[in-house]
């Protein structure tokens, strides 16, 4: 018996969904819940295209349930608020990131680390109240107020959307692992959605920033446009050798399978390599460099709501947004193909509101 996505919940919704591991998206009629007392409904204006969306569409990680409506870099306008909602009003510009619910009682939730809650509900592709969550490649979304972010008034909505995932995903580990001491040397491995924002945060924290990339043709842009101080081509042994033991910490944003050994070699004593990219194969971790240099490899998974708001406010203060290419929803499949080849500077953002003709 076919489930009716259109009728399982009371409000009609429309978006684009992937329906199989080809990852191809197509129009999809579904439904959303009514706006409850604690909820905020937002009309979606823009949604960033995160590489996680692509991984999920193709079921690279093995836990996709189709049909899946991706999108967790959502910026929208409040159209309705519940009776208990005091911090938002209709017309506010707000954001929704990677999660829409957590248990609120575990140690992680108590410490504003909802992103590590074992009962976390993701903005898309999570089981939720008998149905599933559907993300921001759609016309509107209803979210518990706790998971809605105030969007800084001075930031453009389209270029700010990627901050909701890319932004927090690099900001949180940079704070947690102490990568904020002015004058220290930060390496950013991988120059994509995450990497280019990491450069901007790095410069805002007063760090010297070196980009580590396989693509020499990204060098002049990294330095002239994004503000990096230097650039190393990671498959050039001489450049890598010259930089041995010179970097305090590295944010590794690379989602392709890659070796961490050369990156560990770039680190100083006590250096930290923090991985935020999610390659599908395990990392091959050589232990000797960790032991011989008291180095560390750590992970980090986006950020809690409080920290996400802090990050957005920081971006508002320092005028930090993503470098984006705006697309319409019907260009999404081409965008995904280009994303898989890293052919974007540096985030696609879907102009959702102008993509869907009013019904």
């Amino acid at each position, binding site marked *: 018996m076919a489930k009716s996505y259109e009728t399982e919940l009371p409000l009609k919704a429309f978006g684009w969904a992937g329906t199989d591991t080809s990852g191809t998206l197509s129009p999809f009629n579904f439904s959303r819940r009514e706006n409850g007392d604690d909820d905020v409904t937002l009309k979606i204006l823009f949604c960033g295209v995160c590489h996680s969306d692509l991984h999920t569409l193709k079921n690279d*990680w093995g836990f996709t349930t189709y049909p899946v409506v991706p999108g967790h870099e959502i910026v929208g306008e409040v159209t309705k608020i519940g009776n208990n909602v005091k911090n938002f009003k209709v017309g506010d510009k707000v954001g929704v990131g990677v999660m829409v619910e957590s248990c609120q009682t575990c140690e*992680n939730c108590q410490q504003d*680390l909802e992103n*590590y809650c074992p009962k976390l509900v993701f903005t898309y592709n999570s089981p939720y109240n008998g149905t599933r969550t559907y993300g921001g490649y759609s016309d509107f979304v209803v979210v518990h107020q706790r998971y809605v972010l105030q969007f800084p008034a001075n930031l453009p909505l389209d270029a700010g959307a990627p901050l909701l995932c890319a932004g927090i995903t690099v900001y949180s*580990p940079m704070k*947690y692992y102490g990568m904020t001491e002015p004058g220290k040397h930060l390496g950013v491995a991988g120059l994509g959605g995450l990497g280019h924002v990491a450069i901007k945060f790095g410069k805002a924290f007063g760090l010297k920033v070196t980009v580590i990339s396989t693509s020499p043709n990204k060098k002049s842009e990294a330095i002239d446009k994004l503000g990096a101080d230097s650039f190393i081509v990671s498959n050039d042994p001489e450049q890598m050798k010259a930089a041995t033991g010179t970097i305090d910490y590295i944010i590794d944003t690379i989602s392709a399978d890659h070796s961490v*050994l050369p990156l560990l070699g770039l680190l100083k*004593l006590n250096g930290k390599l923090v*991985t*935020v*990219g*999610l*390659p599908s194969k*395990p*990392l*091959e*971790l*050589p*232990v*000797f*460099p*960790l*032991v*011989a*240099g*008291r*180095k*560390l*490899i*750590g*992970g*980090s*998974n986006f950020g809690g709501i409080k920290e996400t708001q802090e990050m957005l406010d920081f971006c508002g203060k320092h005028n930090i947004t993503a470098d984006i290419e705006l697309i319409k929803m019907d260009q999404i499949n081409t965008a995904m193909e280009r994303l898989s080849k890293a052919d974007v500077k540096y985030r696609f953002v879907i102009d959702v509101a102008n993509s869907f003709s009013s019904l």
Partner: protein
Amino acid sequence: MASQPEEEHPKKAFGWAARDTSGVLSPFKFSRRETGEKDVAFKVLYCGICHSDLHMVKNEWGNSIYPLVPGHEVAGEVTEVGSKVTKFKVGDRVGVGCMVNSCKSCQSCSDDLENYCPKIILTYSVKNVDGTITYGGYSDSMVCDENFVIRIPDALSLEAAAPLLCAGITVYSPLKYFGLDKPGLHLGVVGLGGLGHMAVKFAKAFGANVTVISTSPNKKKEALEHLGADSFVVSREQDQMQALMGTFDGIIDSVSAQHSLVPLLALVKNHGKLVMVGAPEKPLEVPAFSIIGGRKTVSGSMIGGIKETQEMIDFAAKHGVKPDIEIIAVDYVNTAMERLLKADVKYRFVIDIGNTLKASS
């Protein structure tokens, strides 16, 4: 005819050395330098057998220089001090660990982290600044710069102090550095050998709740009753491992054989730490999710600086933290190495150099 090792320095010395990659040790005549103005000369009374010695005598790391006199857990009594030595006098009870010199000018040396100095001089099998090769503690005497000599408190016997100079500091340093020395933490120790059993003892002395994680069920009784661990889990038992998932603040992994880090990372709490002190030869697989999902870290640590080694020895003396040792005569050393290879020792061999190492005629 005297060989080059016998002639290169003025003072006769005698020890046991490996000659080739078979790793078999046999009597060896060599020489030690004159006691320089900053040097401390001491007669060796005990020397611990570290698993590194076994790796080195067989050239498993590819950098062994033969003839090779191992031993970097050396304890003895001062016989002579140089004219500018201020820290020691004749008769003092002293020890030497894994290093005998460093550059003294780099950032690591300035930070009391000589163990991470890029120009570190190891106690054995490396070229010293004078071009000669260093020979370790499976010998009757040593001459060492006073800044790399450790004082052994009276509360510790020399045979108990010896293994602390490598095994002890190797686990003490990361427990401190990674903040795993706070009372009440739940710590795991993987591998119950020389390093592992010291990790249990130091962790208990720091007030931790300690679980030993091992492949050998037959080590359980001893771990709980003798070493003082609070609990014991067999890593192959899925049910036992499942029950402990996400419950450890930190895990010290002393296993140098290839093994999977994935189940260990699952045991670690969110924001918890897995610290490697054993160094498996080939890279280990770490799925990105294992560390991203819970903001976990994998790190490593290598011995400790001199200042911290002294601090560790003083702590051990004060809190009664001592290794479990099996004292052997020097001519048992090859058998001991074979047994060590099979992990058949509780938990460190210590060679009674003073009573059993005699120069052959």
